[in-house]
């Protein structure tokens, strides 16, 4: 199975095969809340409300008992389904994709125990590019959480996102900034010293600064709405929002509607100055 996936990655995919090897070993550890993935479990405490509230703010009618009902979400790089499940519990129909079969297997098995989740979530082992053709403009929301720092070709990835997203659909990204601070805290401390992230998970070279992500998004037909810095407290094991995006950050972008063209550079600088004064964002 590994050989087959390598073939795909050389030509039409943003999946990086070296990255996949790293996750293979930990495929069955996903659902241990106190285990290797505990930081991702607790990240749900801020990323789920972030997504939920951003969508509620944009929608006209919703029911607080089922806030994401009727929303179709694509969870790219879903891993063991840690984020897919809470989103589905809030009412969304979630399609979770991950190039690693073992991850999908774990995710499938975990959701099978809950009849509600079983119906609302579909998992597929594939890359984003593989589903582009059959899913053009299908999804209301794409979630790429802790994924873009593992991707081989970021621009291709963003382009594929744009293709499967409906016009005015939302893209949510959480990832790690490329700064000295993120190197020290995100790799040295997190991986080597405290060990809250399995060693070798991240490569600093592949970290994406928010400015670059914004640039790529804006030039691919997205309009960035919110950027928020995130901070992990290793002692309490919990995440919180912070002003600075120098370590981790979350971004919400919206694909432009069918009538608008992708924005030329004139409008870009106008939006950029707007952004810098509004980094507080909607997240609570």
């Amino acid at each position: 199975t590994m050989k087959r996936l390598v073939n795909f990655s050389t030509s039409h995919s943003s999946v990086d095969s070296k990255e996949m090897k790293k996750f293979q070993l930990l495929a069955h550890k996903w659902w241990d809340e106190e285990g290797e993935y505990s930081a991702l479990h607790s990240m749900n405490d801020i990323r789920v409300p972030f997504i939920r509230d951003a969508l509620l703010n944009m929608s006209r009618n919703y029911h607080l008992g089922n806030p994401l009902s009727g929303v179709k979400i694509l969870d790219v790089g879903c891993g063991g389904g840690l984020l897919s499940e809470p989103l589905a519990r809030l009412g969304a129909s979630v399609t979770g994709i991950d190039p690693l079969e073992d991850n999908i297997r774990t995710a499938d098995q975990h959701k099978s125990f809950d009849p509600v989740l079983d119906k609302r979530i579909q998992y597929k082992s594939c890359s984003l590019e593989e589903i582009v053709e059959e899913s053009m403009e299908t999804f209301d929301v794409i979630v790429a959480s802790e994924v873009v720092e593992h991707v081989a070709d970021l621009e291709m990835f963003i382009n594929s996102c744009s293709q499967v997203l409906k016009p005015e659909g939302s893209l949510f990204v959480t990832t790690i900034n490329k700064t000295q601070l993120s190197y020290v805290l995100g790799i040295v401390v997190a991986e080597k010293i405290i060990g809250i992230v399995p060693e070798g998970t991240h490569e600093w070279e592949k970290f994406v600064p928010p400015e670059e992500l914004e640039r790529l998004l804006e030039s691919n037909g997205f309009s960035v709405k919110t950027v928020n810095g995130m901070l992990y407290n290793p002692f309490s094991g919990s995440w919180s929002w912070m002003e600075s995006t120098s370590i981790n950050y979350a971004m919400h972008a919206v694909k432009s509607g069918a009538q608008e063209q992708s924005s030329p550079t004139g409008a870009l600088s106008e939006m950029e100055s707007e952004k810098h004064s509004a980094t507080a964002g909607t997240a609570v």
Partner: protein
Amino acid sequence: VVVSGGGMVGSAMAAVLGHDIHFHDKKIALLEAGPRKEYDRMPDNFSNRVSSISPGSATLLSRFGAWDHVCSLRLKPFRRMQVWDACSEAMIVFEKDDLDDMGYIVENDVIMSALTKQLDAVADRVEVFYGSRAVGYTWPLPSHSCDTSPWVQIELADGHRLQTKLLIGADGHNSVVRKEAEIKNIEHQYDQSAVVATLHLSEATDNNVAWQRFLPTGPIALLPLSDTVSSLVWSTSHEHALELLTMDEESFVDSINSAFWSNANHSDFIDTAGAMFRSAISLLKPSGSAVRQLPPSIARVDPESRAMFPLGMGHATEYVQHRVALIGDAAHRVHPLAGQGVNLGFGDISCLAHHLSAAAFNGSDLGSLKHLLKFETERQRHNVSLITAIDMLKRLYSTKLAPLVLLRTWGLQATNALPPVKVRI
């Protein structure tokens, strides 16, 4: 979610969740061994099991519409509470400055009826299994990489099988859920039983004061139910309790009146020391002592209304485990002397419902320890000091020994004179 135990606390928990907007598409089951209790009108006779409901608990009940039903059935608000010692003149009076209601005396059946009505209102979300009994629990294994279901399996006596993400144990101080989950319980049986009865006063009065006198054998309390009827809660030794139950009605009434009025336990020494202390206080704080009122005298007791039950104290070392939470008497059991038992349970409900509601709105797995531990920490912090205080009070007042009597006399007088301390209580 499955709530095991359909008493006041269990039913209220199910009702609160059933009315929570974030639980709109979730299913809740309530397991109760007894039959359904609902009244459109209360019988003329008052029931002998009553509870003192604090304003905080009343607020919780009104959040989902149950308090309205209670008000339309019957309840008695009280404005004042007078507590005094049998061995001295020391007394402490609680009342709110603005003459608001301090609390309400409500028959347990009334509360149950109100809760049942509100459970009916959300019958599409809450299913109540009356006459049910759980015979087996299968707990999930902590590791998540296995093939068995990660949920709690419950087998009922009639063969029904339920599975749930969260089991809430509200099944009383002998909680089966707690035992099966192997949660250790610190418990202690008091040498006391409580005698309850429904009493008729000699003459009609406003009856908005709750009375409690600490006798050496235990506290005797008179809780108002109406202008002419009050409820008795007399905690005393097992032997005396049995005597009280078996003696004829006239003697019973005499014992009660004598318990409230007699000064037989006073000693001159204590009286003098107490009087001295009181004058000292009035020098420092002229308004420090309130008016002493006289409790009403009892004319007769409702036949068949006398009953007794043993008393004890208990506290579970843990309130939560993966997919399990304990509330009410299952988590903590106290002496009735402070009238706090069910209010602690309602406090548990408020806290747990708050955390579960937030968790549901975050799409979290309801049985996850993360938010359950937050509930446990909050409640243990609140409960432990109160439970300990009640236990200490019980022990302090169970003696005639002069030094301790003096201590508590002065303590009570001092507390009576100190508004900040009283407000905290």
